[in-house]
Structure formats: C-alpha cells, structure tokens
C-alpha cells in the first residue's frame, strides 16, 4: 500500500469513530480557550513570542558551541554525557548503562524522545521492564498504544474506556469511572514501581549550556520521582533542546506552559545539575545525558527547514489545527502528530514514508499563529510538499523527489505553459466557457464532498473589457 493509501485509511478510521472525534473536539476547544485566557494581553503575547523565537533562534545559531559548552559543564558537574547519531545508538547507550548496573526495572517520566527511540520496545526485547509513570502514558502503555497528543497522550480515551482498561489490567481494584478515583488508583499502583525502580528515565525540556542544567516541566511529580528516587537517572534529549543561559529559561517556560495548557507555571519545574554530591542523602548517584541527533543535524543544514528545530513541544499547533482536531494523533503515524509533526517527522523518517503528512493541512495558518516561537509552519508544510516532488535532488531532505509522478509533472508543465502563453490561454478559456455545460457533474474525488465548480460564461478578461477597462 502506498503511504497515501495507508494514511487515508487511518484518517477514515478516525473520522468514522464519533467517540474519538468528540474527545478531540472537546479537549482541543478547551485547550485553545485555556491558552487564550492565559494571555489576556495580546500585545504582551506577541512580544513574548518574539523573545521566545529569538532565544531559540540564537541558541540554534550557536548550537555546536553550546553543545560543547553543555557537555563541558555537565561533565564538570558529574553528569555523564553520551552522543548518539541514531536511535539504535541511543537505545544501545541506555541498555549498556542498565547492564552495567545489572538493572532490569526502569521507571519512566514522560519523554517524546524515548517514543521516537521506541525505547520500551527495544528494552523489553532485552528482558528489561519499562514502566511509564505519567498518568496518560501509563494508560496508553496498558493498552499498547502510542501517544495521540504530545502533552495529553491518552486524550483519545474517555473515562469509561480508562475505567474498563484499569479493571481489565488490575482486577483487584474496584471498578470506577470517577476521575479522582482512577487517578488515585494509578498513584497506588505506581508507588511501588517508583520505590523499586533501579533506573529512572526522563526527557529534557531545556538543557542550559551555561550551567550544565537539565530542566524538566511537569505537573504530576512523576518527573521528580523518576529523577530523585532510583539510584541512576538517564535523561534523553534531542540535540536541539540546548539553550545558552539560565536567563533564557523563564521566558521559554512562560511560553511553554501557557501555550500548552494555559497554566502560568506547572506544579513542578525541575532543574537538575548534578548527581548526588558527598553528604547529600538522596538523589541518583549517577546522572547520564543522552544527546540524540537522529537527522536533526541534517535538518539543521537547510536554512528554511532549520526553523522547525526551534520547537519547544508545547502542542499549541495541534490544539489549534482543524485537521488534527478532527482526525486525532494516531492517524498521523509517527510519534509527533499535528502540524509540527508533519514538518519534523517526514524529515526524520523520510518523505518516501511520511511525505503525505505535509498534505494533512488546510494551510489556514492557525498553527503558525499559535506557535510560541514563531515557527512558520504553513510555509514549512508548503516547502515539504515541494521537496517530495522536486525534480532536482540537490537538497538534504530524505526521500526528496520520491513522490514525483511523471503524469502530474506533465499536467503542471502544461498548465504553466498555457498560463504563460497568452494566445493559448485566451483560446483555452474561450473554449472552456463555450463548453461549460458539458463538464460532468461528478469529477472524481473532488466532487465527493464538494459541488462541482462551474466555469463562468464570460471570463474576467472579457467582463473587464465590456466594462471599459483598458488596463486590466
């Protein structure tokens, strides 16, 4: 099956599921409203977006130096830094750390990079147990699913579905559809897992080069537990998460939490700078930082697509996307859905596999307007549409030109020739007007959900001439 046929199938499945559509509609409306309320002063919002965009752009401009500075400062603080070009290397690094400690039990905080690495899958195949502790991630892990939203991973499920799932996996816990009760049940179940885990894994929201500090944004306390209780903490992050100064963090944090959930700050904001020091009585004795490239340095090479690396993973673009709201996260395929996913993931996994995602957009521009760091998402989606059909394969994007079809290219060539040749253009429009009633009512997929357009009896040129316009 072609990637388009597969995608269409996933979209159809989602659209045919009224429960799913309701869940997304209600949630996305709620999240949009919360963000709106969190920024009552729109001038301030625009100012803050500019600050955020500049901070991220500057960090990227100096990325190689900042990564070296981050490594040097982390190392000085006692954090062991590892570099991985591929997800295989990153998984291997995590596995090696576990084996060195004869560890089999990992407790995980929320990490989209670990989703990108398919870390659970990899480690479980090696006999390790990986337990997700973020409530949403825990729910979808119980059901063997992937996240459907980057900050609300289980948002496709209703409380009844969660209740049935808990009952099926933990028969000893009384059935309840009450959200407080379900939440407390998860607390009870996972408490022992935190206690027993030998390895705590987390992502990173910002890695501060100046001080060698790993920042982690969360509400549940599972991030704190994962990075405090087990004797070893492993943080995995994409190389683009580095920022220059500690002073860069407050504006970015403000943008992140308000854009994501409308919170002025999350319950916990962790700043981790070293393993347990002599005299301290808790905290991991080892902290590891895994810096993952996985095509990011390739994206970095393109002066336009490069802007997608500014992303701070707030999810605002998906919350505001009319396509995402209707089809939900799973229809997209790769770990990160929505507009930013449609830009980043095809570049990581290849246009030949996910180029079609660039078409999952109406180009209405809502994502670009919501983005707290001003990533020009519509422009980049457009660019990827071009990348996958371009003839010269001189750029750096994987799978470039892979979706080029000779027939389509020929049609567009003809189209452009007609439009560039006045005599032909005039004859063509005259002919089209003349035979306007001969155009069939059904023209393929176009008229499945739309009225077939009718060509006007007179062209605009003709009307203008009749009105007496000399220069059109």
């Amino acid at each position, binding site marked *: 099956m072609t990637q388009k046929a597969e995608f269409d199938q996933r979209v159809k499945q989602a659209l045919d599921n009224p429960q799913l559509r309701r*869940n997304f509609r*209600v949630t996305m409306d709620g*999240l949009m409203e919360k963000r709106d309320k969190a920024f009552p002063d729109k001038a301030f919002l625009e100012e803050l977006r500019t*600050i955020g965009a*500049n*901070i991220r*752009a500057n960090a*990227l*401009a100096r*990325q*190689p130096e900042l990564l070296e500075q981050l*490594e040097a400062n982390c190392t000085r603080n006692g954090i062991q830094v*590892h*570099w*991985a*070009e591929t997800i295989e290397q990153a998984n291997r690094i995590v596995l090696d750390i576990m084996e060195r400690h004869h560890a089999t039990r990992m407790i995980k905080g929320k990490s989209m990079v670990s989703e990108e690495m398919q870390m659970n899958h990899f480690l479980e195949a090696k006999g390790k147990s990986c337990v997700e502790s973020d*409530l*949403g991630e825990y729910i979808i892990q119980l059901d063997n699913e992937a996240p459907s939203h980057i900050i*609300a991973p*289980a948002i496709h*499920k209703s409380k009844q579905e*969660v209740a049935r799932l808990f009952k099926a996996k933990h028969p000893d816990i009384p059935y309840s559809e009450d*959200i*407080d009760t*379900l*939440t407390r049940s998860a*607390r009870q179940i996972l*408490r022992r897992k935190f*206690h027993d885990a030998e390895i705590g894994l987390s992502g990173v929201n910002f890695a501060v080069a100046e001080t060698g500090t790993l920042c982690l944004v969360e*509400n*549940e*306390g599972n991030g*704190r*537990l994962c990075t*405090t*209780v087990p004797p070893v903490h492993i943080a995995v992050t994409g*190389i683009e998460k580095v920022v220059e*100064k*500690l002073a*860069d*963090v*407050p*504006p970015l*944090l403000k943008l992140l939490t308000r854009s994501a*959930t409308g919170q*002025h*700050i999350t*319950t916990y*904001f*962790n*700043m*981790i*700078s070293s393993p*347990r020091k002599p005299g*301290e*009585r*808790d905290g991991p004795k080892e902290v590891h930082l895994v810096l993952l490239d996985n095509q990011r*340095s390739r994206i*970095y*090479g393109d002066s336009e697509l490069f802007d997608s690396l500014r992303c701070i993973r707030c999810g605002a673009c998906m919350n505001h996307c009319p396509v995402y709201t209707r089809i939900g996260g799973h229809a997209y395929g790769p770990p990160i859905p929505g507009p930013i996913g449609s830009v980043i993931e095809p570049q990581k996994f290849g246009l030949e596999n996910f180029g079609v995602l660039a078409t999952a957009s109406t180009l209405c521009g809502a994502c670009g307007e919501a983005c707290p760091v001003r990533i020009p998402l519509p422009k980049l989606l457009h660019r990827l549409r071009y990348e996958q059909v371009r003839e010269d394969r001189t750029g750096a994007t994987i799978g470039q030109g892979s979706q080029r079809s000779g027939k389509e290219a020929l049609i567009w060539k003809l189209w452009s020739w007609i439009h560039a040749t006045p005599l032909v253009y005039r004859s063509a429009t005259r002919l089209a007007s003349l035979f306007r009633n001969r155009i069939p009512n059904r023209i393929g997929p176009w008229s499945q959900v739309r009225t077939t357009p009718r060509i006007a009896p007179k062209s605009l040129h003709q009307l203008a001439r009749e009105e007496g316009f000399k220069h059109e």
Partner: protein
Amino acid sequence: MNKARDNILARLRARSTEIPPVELDRGFRSPDWNRQQRIELFCKAMTSVRTEIHRVRASDWADRLAQLVKERKLNNLLYAPNGPLARQIEAAWRNGEALPELVSRTAELDEWKEELFFGIDAAITSTRGGIAEVGALILWPTPQEPRSFSLVPPIHIAVVKADQLHNTFADAIADENWQAGMPTNAVLISGPSKSADIEQTLAYGVHGPVELIVLLIE
C-alpha cells in the same frame, strides 16, 4: 561514542550559510510591586492551584503547624533535626499535647526508603523563597533537608518568608545570581501534584504530595 559526537558536530558546522545572531531582548523588566503586593499575588496564585496558605508570624508559626497536623490527625511528621526549622518545631512539640510523632531520619534515603514511601504521613521543609507572579516555592534541597522530603510523603508543609518573595522567576535568577552555581537539584513547586490526563479533567494527588500547605511568615 566519540565518533558520534564528532560526526554530529561536524555536520552542524558544515552548514554553508552563517546564521546571524539576532538582537536578543529577554524581556527582563521586573514589575514594580511592593512587599504587600507580592504577598497578595503569591497567595492568590498559589491558592488558585489548591495550595493551602496560612499567613503566620515568625514567633508563632510552629504553633500553627502543631495545630494543623493535630487537626488532620496525622500519625507522624517528618522534619530535619539539624535543619533551619528544627528549634522552633521541637519547642512547639515540647509544649503541645497529643501531637503526631516527630520523625527525624538522618541516614541516606536508601536505608529507610520503605518507611519514607509507606510509613510517613507528612514532611515539613524550609524554602529558599518564592515567586509572586506565578505563585511558586523555590526549593534548593540541602543535606539536612533532602529533596525527597518535599516529594514522597502525601502532605508537604513548606515554610516561606515573605521577605524572600521575588517578583518573577527571572528576578529570582538575576537577584541571586543562580548562574554562578546551581545546586544538585533546584525545584519550583506551585501546588499539590495534579494531572488532567483523563478527559482534561483536573485531578489532584497523582504522584507527588496530595496536599501542599504553605506557612507564609510575614
């Protein structure tokens, strides 16, 4: 994996066009708030995320603490016997009656993890200060007051001094020159643990403390 490191850095440096750094304004303009405004903002923001705040005096906060834990009928309260709050807590407990047991553990966490996870009702810690704008506590845990005190027990009681409230997070970093040396772990806490992962409905008490009680010394 030095080869991976070299390859990644080489690819990043291979960029053909130089990226000009942009003029950077970090938006660092501190609001013009006085002490009283800071207190009001702090209390309002923290209360809005279900933090319980008690405004107390330096002389009697420990009595209020005793009263609060007694009302809640707790079995025990974990505190740091060599921490900054110890003297006043111990004095209040000497005078009080039928108070929860004061628990002091000075061993490494690994030696009493089971008890901390399953046997402690509440813990009290000091704080380094707070942030008025968003309503958050600043904690830089110390050997005396380890980070798990404010994390594992179901109730966390924190003492914060009104004089140590900063206007904003950016102010806190700048005023105290944090970049000169960060501790092992610094954390901002704005309320009890919460999640909205099921139907975006807020539920409190997921993995961190179920209740956060703040004693604000004015």
